[in-house]
């Protein structure tokens, strides 16, 4: 624990690790259930990009877990600290807003990676997976986790009560992640919904991530990288600005 940043990162990781059954095991089980149900129904009926459905589904579920858990980590930690008041322990020490941001976002990425790795391990023997271009896997997991971690910081700071945070999660994060091509290729959608999907940044995160496994995807991974990169940059600037102004944290 060398400085404020590394301690805050350590504390945030320790926090979710201490309640691992809820923050790691539960989401892994949820993803496993999705896989069992959807692969039971669709395996043998559907192929996507020439890939068996179960194999296609697994990277989508892994990435969805990374994203949802990254969001859950920073948002729930912040709202709990705010509601219980122990956020002062972080606000009193000489921690800069940049350190604050990086610690919460990186802890979210770590949580996303741990859950994502758990899902990957749990689903591994259902279908043989390839790792065609593994660098893409890493890049999109990292950037996607950071984007959702950053959104979690925004939501956690903005929400005054748990139900406001739940609304943010249920009406924004859930639809964006579910309607992003986790369970299907958007090429199978009617043209209108294909267009709509192209406006969903989460689509590019999932699609780019999946590209790393199979080397094929709906969109070019470079386009996905550009979209995801711009999203990350915009959200980072926005969140840093909130923190710098002390929005809802330093009245």
């Amino acid at each position, binding site marked *: *624990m*060398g*400085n*404020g940043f*590394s*301690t*805050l990162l*350590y*504390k945030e990781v*320790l*926090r979710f690790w*201490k*309640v691992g059954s809820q923050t790691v095991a539960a989401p892994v089980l949820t993803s496993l259930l999705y896989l069992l149900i959807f692969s039971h129904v669709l395996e043998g009926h559907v192929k996507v990009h020439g890939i068996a459905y179960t194999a296609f589904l697994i990277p989508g579920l892994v990435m969805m877990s990374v994203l949802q858990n990254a969001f859950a980590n920073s948002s729930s930690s912040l709202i709990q*600290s705010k509601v*219980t*008041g*122990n956020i*002062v*322990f*972080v*606000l*009193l*020490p*000489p*921690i*800069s807003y940049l350190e604050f941001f990086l610690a919460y976002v990186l802890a979210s990425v770590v949580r996303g990676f741990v859950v994502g790795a758990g899902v990957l391990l749990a689903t591994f023997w259902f279908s043989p997976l390839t790792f065609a271009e593994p660098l893409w896997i890493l890049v999109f997991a990292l950037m996607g986790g950071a984007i959702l971690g950053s959104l979690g910081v925004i939501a956690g700071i903005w929400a005054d009560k748990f139900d406001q945070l739940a609304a943010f999660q249920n009406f924004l994060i859930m639809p964006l992640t579910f309607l992003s091509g986790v369970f299907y290729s958007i090429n199978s959608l009617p043209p209108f919904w294909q267009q709509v999907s192209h406006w969903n940044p989460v689509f590019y995160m999932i699609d780019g991530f999946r590209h790393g496994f199979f080397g094929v995807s709906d969109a070019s991974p470079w386009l996905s990288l550009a979209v995801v990169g711009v999203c990350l940059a915009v959200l980072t600037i926005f969140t840093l600005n909130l923190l710098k102004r*002390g929005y809802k944290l*330093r*009245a």
Partner: protein
Amino acid sequence: MSAAIRIQQVSKCFGDVRALDGVDLEVQQGEFFGLLGPNGAGKTTLISALAGLVRADAGSLSVMGHDVQSDYRAARRHLGVVPQELVFDPFFTVRESLKIQSGYFGIGGNDAWIDEILENLGLTSKANANMRMLSGGMKRRVLVAQALVHRPPVIVLDEPTAGVDVELRQTLWAFIRRLNEAGHTIVLTTHYLEEAESLCGRIAMLQSGRVVALDTTARLLRRFSTHTLRLRSHGEMPVDLVRGAAQSGGWWSFPFDAFDEVEPLLARIRAAGCRIDDLEIGKPDLEEVFIRVMQGQTEAPVN
């Protein structure tokens, strides 16, 4: 030598409420300073502004010469704050909480000092207990410990003894006094005025966001309060004595400034044929000072 705390023309509004209204205050290094005032007077807002939890609309604040905005890292390193609310992180044990708090200040390997704080606050046996398992009083002790992990030269305690039992109060004040004797500057807010009176060398009183009194405790007591001769008697009290006295619950109170006024007073009562059943002498007390200041009276009543 820079002041431990310097507050200059600080104002802060929350919507229409003027929480702080041009506060000027300076606390010198090594002082034991009391910040008193009724609920809503602005004490906690002032402390929050000092700690960087609240941003002042106008004016400047500094800790040991470091501005709390422009030089916030140094300012916060020099300041330890015990918040008023009983807050804790339910995920961690006492020791983990203290190690993490040390880390936030960039201090690793702080075990020796943490052990010393735990010992002094009677927390050693609870070091590995989860925060959730502690009683309210124990949680309060941990809050004090958390404020001290980085050995701040300036320590601010916002109502540290609210709802706390006698044992902890005594343990706490003994420890805080030792820290003060070792050179730490202490700023204290409390509603227990006898605590402030016995501990604080200097006192500021806040009302509606303004400093309405600021002086050494001794001078405040002298200016706003007097000694009182209290007695219970039967028989008729002389009319001219009754005028300067107050009566409640069968007790007469006669304010006086110098002790040689007591004897003639008693002689007059005896001469009037009054029999004294019980008698005591009350010292000037801060509660009276507080009430008079809050009512806007400037000096003790003339007898």
